[in-house]
Each structure stands twice: as structure tokens, then as C-alpha cells.
């Protein structure tokens, strides 16, 4: 009996060892990446303990006085947490919804254009904003919005209208930021939808034509329904990142210290950055980061659960 029992165990052990021996080189090939993610992604994670202490430099992360949920309480009482969450989520919803609408529009209209050279040149120009740094985006916006020299105020002045002090008007910024985002990403993002339209079966289009469908009907009844699955998948993917802000865009557009605009432009990333570099309040910054990671994680799991229901082959895990 004993021997009979031990045989399977030995076999399992052997096969495990065999697995390891067979995979040794492949494991070694993954080692640099594993080490990389251990250092730069996993090693900082325990540092989130900062959210529960009152950090001071001399004691370090793990010896500073423990304060429990006090940092979170402070963020809730001051209203900061609500404001940051609202701004981050509202901007992301605008980016996702308007972004996809703009990309679909561009893809469909591109497809209606017959001249190849026109399409090539305009597509190349539309990709241009994707290739530049966030710093340059900030400068481009400054060129247009600057009170003294900006193009916008130049035009307004020549029309004898009052110039706009954009950099001290918080209510303008949701528009400025969303327009800049659309300007930067629409051309490049439209490629996914354009590729999907190219996959459309020409026989269906042909059949619709024979049945007498005009261009509007073709777009509404054939192209748009054809793009729907792509749209849903992209939508669900981007939902997973709904609590993640685009730091480069906000930081370079608004400027590092423009307190006048915080009410409408402060997102989680810019708040954490400030708490690190300006206020040196490491614990508060970490509390916001922990909140962002935990809730972001829950959102991803939910989004993935929905993807699994809608189209299982596209789910992430």
C-alpha cells in the first residue's frame, strides 16, 4: 500500500523537476523582465504603507508613527478626495465618449474620400500630434491661449473683441483640455476603426447598393453596426483606466503652480505629484495613490467581467 501511494507522488515530483529542467533556458530568458518588474513595479508597492503613517524623513517609511485611517479621513473631510475623483472620472468619460465619436467620424469620412493622395496626406498630418512630447503640447496651447501674444487673442483683438485671460479662467479649462486631447489622439486612434471598416465584406456593400441604399443608409445600417463590436471592446478596455489620469497632458497644459485653475483641472496624478514635489506630504500622496489603485483594480475586474459576458474571446483574464 505504501509503495503504491508513493509512486504517483514521485512521478509528480519528477515531472515538476522535468518541467523545470525543460524550461530552464526559457525561464532565464524571462529573468531580466522579471527582475525589472520586481524592482520598478513590485518593490514600491509595500511603500503604500505610507498612507497609514505620518511620514517624517528621519524615521523613514516603516518607523514613522502609525495613524490608521487618519489620512483618508482628512482627504474626505476636506473634500479633496471627492474633487479629485470627480475631475479624473469626468475628464476620462469625456475623453472616452468624445474620443470614440471623433475617431469613428474620422474613419468613416476617410473612407468616403476617393482621392488616394488626399487621404495619404491628411492621415499623415493627423498622426503628427501623436508623435510629439507632452512638453511641446503645453507650448502649442500657450501659443494659442497666451493673453499677450496668443493667436486666439490676436484674432479677438483684430475683431475688436475683448481678449480672454485663459490662464486664470477655470471654467474654460474642461473645454481646452478635452479639445487638446481630441486634437492629439483622434488621428492615430481612428486607425483602429479604419482598419475595421477595411475588414467590411465588399459583397455586403455591393448587395446594399443593388437594393438601392444610398450613402447615408450604407453608413447608418451597415458601417456603424459593423463598428459596434470594436467600439464596445475599446470602450470596456478604456473603462478599466477610468481612475488613471493623463499627467503629462494636464501638467503641461495647466502649468505646475497655477492654483487659479485647480478647481477644474486638478486630477489624482497632479495632486499626488504636488504632494510629493511641492508640499512634501508623502503620506497624503500615498493615501490618494492607494485609493486610486484599489478602486481602479475593482473597476478593471468589473469591466473584465462585463467583457467576458459580451465577448469572451476578448477578455483580459
Amino acid at each position, binding site marked *: 500500500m505504501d509503495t503504491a501511494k508513493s509512486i504517483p507522488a514521485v512521478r509528480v515530483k519528477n515531472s515538476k523537476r522535468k518541467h523545470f529542467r*525543460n524550461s530552464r533556458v*526559457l*525561464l532565464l530568458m*524571462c529573468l*531580466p*523582465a*522579471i527582475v525589472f*518588474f520586481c524592482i520598478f513595479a*513590485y*518593490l514600491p*508597492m*509595500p*511603500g503604500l504603507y*505610507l498612507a497609514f503613517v505620518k511620514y517624517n524623513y528621519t524615521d523613514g517609511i516603516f518607523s514613522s508613527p502609525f495613524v490608521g485611517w487618519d489620512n483618508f479621513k482628512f482627504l474626505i473631510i476636506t473634500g479633496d478626495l471627492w474633487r479629485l475623483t470627480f475631475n479624473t472620472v469626468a475628464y476620462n468619460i469625456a475623453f472616452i465618449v468624445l474620443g470614440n465619436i471623433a475617431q469613428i*467620424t*474620422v474613419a468613416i*469620412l476617410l473612407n468616403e*474620400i*476617393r*482621392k488616394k493622395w*488626399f*487621404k*495619404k*496626406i*491628411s*492621415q*499623415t*498630418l493627423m498622426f503628427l500630434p501623436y508623435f*510629439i*512630447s507632452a*512638453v511641446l503640447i503645453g*507650448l502649442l496651447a500657450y*501659443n494659442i491661449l*497666451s493673453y499677450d*501674444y*496668443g*493667436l486666439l*487673442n*490676436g484674432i479677438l483683438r483684430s475683431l475688436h473683441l475683448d481678449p480672454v485671460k485663459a490662464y486664470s479662467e477655470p471654467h474654460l479649462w474642461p473645454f481646452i483640455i478635452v479639445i487638446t486631447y481630441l*486634437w492629439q489622439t483622434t488621428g*492615430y486612434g481612428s*486607425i483602429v476603426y479604419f*482598419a475595421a*471598416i477595411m*475588414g*467590411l465584406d465588399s459583397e455586403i*456593400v455591393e448587395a446594399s447598393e443593388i437594393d438601392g441604399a*444610398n450613402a447615408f*443608409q450604407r453608413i447608418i445600417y451597415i458601417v456603424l453596426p459593423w463598428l459596434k463590436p470594436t467600439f464596445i471592446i475599446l470602450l470596456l478596455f478604456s473603462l478599466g483606466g477610468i481612475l488613471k489620469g493623463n499627467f*503629462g497632458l494636464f501638467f503641461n497644459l495647466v*502649468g505646475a503652480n497655477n492654483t487659479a485653475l485647480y478647481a477644474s483641472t486638478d486630477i489624482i*496624478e497632479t495632486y499626488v505629484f504636488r504632494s*510629493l514635489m511641492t508640499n512634501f506630504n*508623502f503620506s497624503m*500622496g*500615498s493615501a490618494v*495613490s492607494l485609493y486610486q489603485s484599489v478602486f481602479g*483594480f475593482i473597476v478593471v475586474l468589473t469591466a473584465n467581467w462585463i467583457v467576458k459576458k459580451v465577448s469572451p474571446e*476578448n477578455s*483580459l483574464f
Partner: protein
Amino acid sequence: MDIRNERDLIGGNTPRPARIRTDYTEIIMSWFGYIFIGLFAISCLLPFLIILGTSFTSEAAVKKFGFNIWPHEFSTFAYQIVFENPKLIIGSYLVTMGITIVGTVVGLFIVAMTGYALQRPDFSYRNKISFFIYFTTLFSGGLVPFYLLITQYLDLKDSYLAVLLPGLLTPFLIIMMKSFVRSIPHAITESAKIDGAGDFTIFLRLILPMTTPALATIGLFIALGYWNEWYNAMLFLSPDMDYRPLQLFLYNVVTSADFIRNSAASSNVAMSDVPLETMKMATAVVATGPVILFYPFVQRYFIKGITVGAVKG
């Protein structure tokens, strides 16, 4: 999703039948397309023309007429000042090029190697390692612990390594490599194994040469990331460093008049005559020029990247 050759995605047409009849809706849609797409394409170019135009304008004309596409008063003064002290800008160029080249070569090699190993069906740890890497996109320690790690534990403050190392790999690029490798039949690996080749040799001698378009795509993504990198540079490099990466140099020029005055200090221009506005534009042209001149030739690789990447993860 059926994705054709990415070349077709620039200027391509959907296979549409020859018109049986041309009705007015076709004409309306195509004109609408020309106008809308044309205007949007121009709006993408316009801000760059403003920068270029202003950089060649005299500071006095900018103060009078504002930023403009067409120089009211042509002047190369801003460029003269930028290149008056060429050590600064050339130093920045060399730093950025060095970081970009080293980072791209090393990063690309690691991404390709990892992507290949994780796509091997006979690799028993592939799912575990894939999840280990993917998990980092779901949950992160955030900026503060990352900052403390780099500055206090790894002691990389004021070191170019603080810019180079964190940009080497991203989970996104490893996933992209995996989907590229997926298109290579596993039989190739298997037959090479029967011939006695080791896993690393197979990767180096067989897989790498077969995946050159994928490598170009991933390499260009990494290289663009390094060229445009300013975030880690701003976090970790001190403001009084001599040679800083180009985008940080541009950031300092754009946001700080003092920085412009200091960098122009060695020239013979009086402090009050330093052309603050036009120098921002001239620096932007110098820092961004190579990317703008280069991208039309490589854009199809970026298109390949998004069509591969967007389908899965």
C-alpha cells in the same frame, strides 16, 4: 477583425464596387469628407507652423503682433542665441540620443526575448509569468514610493540611469511582441529543437530574423518614448545639471524665463535683450525637428503597433 497589410491603412480604400449609379448622397458624403478631414488635418499642422513662424520672427514683432505663422519681421536671432552656446543644446542632444539608443537596444532585446518565451506553448510557467507582468498595469505603488525607491534605495538621483532604466520595458510592448510571435508557427521552434538547437539559439538565430517588422515596431515605440521622455527627467535630475535630456531642456526653457536668461548668459546679449518668447519656439523647433522629419517614413510601424495592440490588451 480582419487586418490587412498596414500599408493599406494609410490612404487605403475599402473594396467598394464600381458605382452602378452616382446618387447625390454619395457626392454629399464625399464632399463632407474632404472638407471635414481637410480642416482637421490643417488644424493638426497649424500649431506647428505657428511655432516655426514665430521662431523666425524678431522679438519686437512678436511683442507687437503676437505669435503668427508668417513672420512680420524675419529674424534668426533666437536661433543665434540658442546656438551661441552650442555646448548646452548639443550636450542635450547627445544625452537624449545616448539614452534613446542604449535604451532602445537593451529594451528591445529584453522585450523580444520575454515575448518569445512567454508565447512558447511548451513553456510551463508562461501563464504565471504573463500574469506577474500584466498585474503591474492593474495595481501600482504610485508615485511617492516609486520616487523614494529611485532616490533613496537605488540612489539614482541625478543619474541618467533614473531616466534610462524605468523606460526599458512596458507590459504593453511585451504583450505586443507576444501577439507578433503568435503568427510564427510553433513547428519552426520544434524542428529546430529536434535538430538540437537550444532555446536561446532558436530565439537568436531563427525567431529574431523572422520578426524584423515586429522588432522595428516595438523598437520605434521604445525610441519615441525615450525621445519624448521628460517626466522621469524632471523628477530625478536636478535643475542645475549641465546636460539634461532634450525635453527637460525644452520644459525648462518653456516654463522659466530665468533659465533662458542663464543659458544665454555666456553670449554678449544684454539680459533685457534676450528674446524670451522666440527662444522658446526656436528651442522647440530644434528639439522636435528630427521626430517631425522622421515620422512620415516610419508611421506605418506605429499603425501596425496599434492594430496589433488594440485587438488584445
